[in-house]
């Protein structure tokens, strides 16, 4: 059964996947095992994306299937029983109001076992600084779509430096318009222009197998 659920998710059979996951739980299946299978499936979706076999539409649909299954699976899990591999403070940077890239990344990061604190869009530098102080994340993830976001990323890194917090976190930037030179410019540790790569790099940044 779990094998079939995994296959349905990976093959983008939305209805089938959700139906089978429900049946599995209704039949007394272990929600922890279901969660693990869903995570494996999302990992496979991500890796197919990185190989060029899947595209953004599959990432989004995969995320949607995962979200639907989690809706009825997570309440069945005992709190604290879900192991987290790391914590990410995530936001779309100041002056940018786009959320789609950030949200795709978030689903995949959560599916990989990260706890994600989502600061939303148009996030002021200070809000990132406060969130780092409060949540002590392993990673700060900054997203932008518009080119103006690139300078907001740099300013946010600078503010983290000023606050003496830069060395306590790894910083990854993401979005359609970031690249190696933007990473250098902003002073980040890694960059990704897709969610699958972003999550893989996050794992590498905290020393977990990617």
């Amino acid at each position: 059964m779990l094998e079939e659920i995994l296959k349905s998710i990976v093959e983008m059979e939305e209805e089938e996947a959700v139906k089978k996951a429900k049946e599995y739980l209704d039949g007394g299946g272990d929600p922890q095992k279901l969660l693990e299978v869903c995570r494996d499936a999302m990992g496979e979706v991500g890796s197919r994306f990185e190989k060029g076999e899947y595209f953004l539409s599959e990432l989004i649909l995969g995320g949607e299937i995962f979200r639907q299954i989690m809706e009825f699976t997570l309440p069945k899990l005992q709190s604290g029983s879900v192991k987290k591999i790391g914590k990410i403070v995530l936001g779309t940077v100041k002056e940018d109001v786009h959320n789609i890239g950030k949200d795709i990344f978030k689903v995949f990061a959560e599916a990989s076992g990260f706890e994600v604190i989502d600061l939303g869009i148009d996030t002021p530098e200070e809000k990132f600084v406060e969130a780092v102080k409060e949540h002590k994340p392993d990673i700060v993830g900054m997203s932008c779509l518009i080119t103006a976001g690139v300078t907001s990323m740099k300013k946010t890194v600078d503010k983290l430096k000023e606050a003496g917090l830069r060395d306590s976190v790894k910083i990854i930037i993401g979005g359609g318009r970031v690249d190696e030179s933007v990473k250098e410019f902003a002073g980040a540790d890694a960059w990704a222009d897709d969610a699958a790569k972003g999550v893989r790099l996050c794992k590498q940044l905290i020393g977990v197998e990617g």
Partner: protein
Amino acid sequence: MVSNAKELAEKRMARLMAAINLEEPDKVPLAGVGGDIVPAYAGISMYEYCYDVEKAVKATEKFIKDFPCDWPFAASVVGLDGRVFNVAFSEFPDICINLTFITGPMHDALGDKYYRYPGREISPDSSPQFIGGAFMEADEYDKLIADPVKFIAETVLPRACRNLETPRKAMAAMVRLGREISNFNALMGQIVGKMIENGYPAMALGGAYAPLDLIGDFLRGVENLLLDIRRCPEKVKAAAEALVEPIMNYALAHKSIGANLAFIPLHLNEYLSPKLYKEFYWPTLKEVIERLVKEGFKVMVFFEGKHDAHLETILELPKGWGVAYFEKTDVVKAKEVLKGHTCVMGGIPMGLIVGGTPAQIDEYVKNLLEKVKPGGGFILAPGVGTAPRETPLENIKALVEAVEKYG
């Protein structure tokens, strides 16, 4: 007035047209940067640039004077894509062509939920941004298919625009919108005047849209549409087909202003696998382009993101159809595939202009032009034209100078 303005404009125009017609120009044409840097360079806020005609004209003139290029494509317009309004007004050729760009004041008049403007929903220094949204339900495809213009004008827009919610509100909104169209045309008239004075070709640009993008950007929202493609594929396909006619009506209305280049910015292209692209996106887009070409237009398509997986489909278009403007697709590879068939545009990553040094930019342009210059049919341009306000000016200068040297 630049003393030899007319001559300079003719030279630049010839350069561009040679590239578009797949010939080798005297020099590789450069389409320059624009965006946030334009108001920043003039010392005004983004809000002023979007709302104050006089200041916007001055800022534009200062920028195109100090950072010359062959085609100030990205620096010439202050507005966000308004293709849903073009379709809504597509039965009225005199009106529909005026709504390709929704300016800040038009956004105020409409009270729409598609855009965010500086000094309104976002800070005065922020770039104007399009965020789209979902203003049509999944079970409404049949209505869209049956009469797309009626459905968009009478059902979608009243949901998407606060000031069109009721007929009595809409009356006032339309009067205001009309006033802002006049203001925008006056602004564009002044900007074109400044371009001519400064030796730039005055090119009337037309427009069209990929039918599926219209659904994703303005009706269902991108994520919903991607799910619809799986959940109700036949309806999505039929809806895209139904939108071809109104989009053509809008596109052909540009004949009246003498436009012979139609601009189509794409959005969903990089979201789709080759299979989905070929089934849902490309057939109707291809039809729009082919019909425009038959009507005597050249078409310029902006392929957002990475278009590598779909590159070969461009060869299905008639040779010399127009310009393929790429954002992140490798233009060297693209030119390899498309040479002798399609003019290729792009090549400069904005990250390099923002984060690089003048020496790096010089080196980059030199290497790139060595590969793409031979044989012509190439326009050098930033992958996205919007340069952030902190973009180092010496880097923009370096780009201009490098093209001067190696073009």
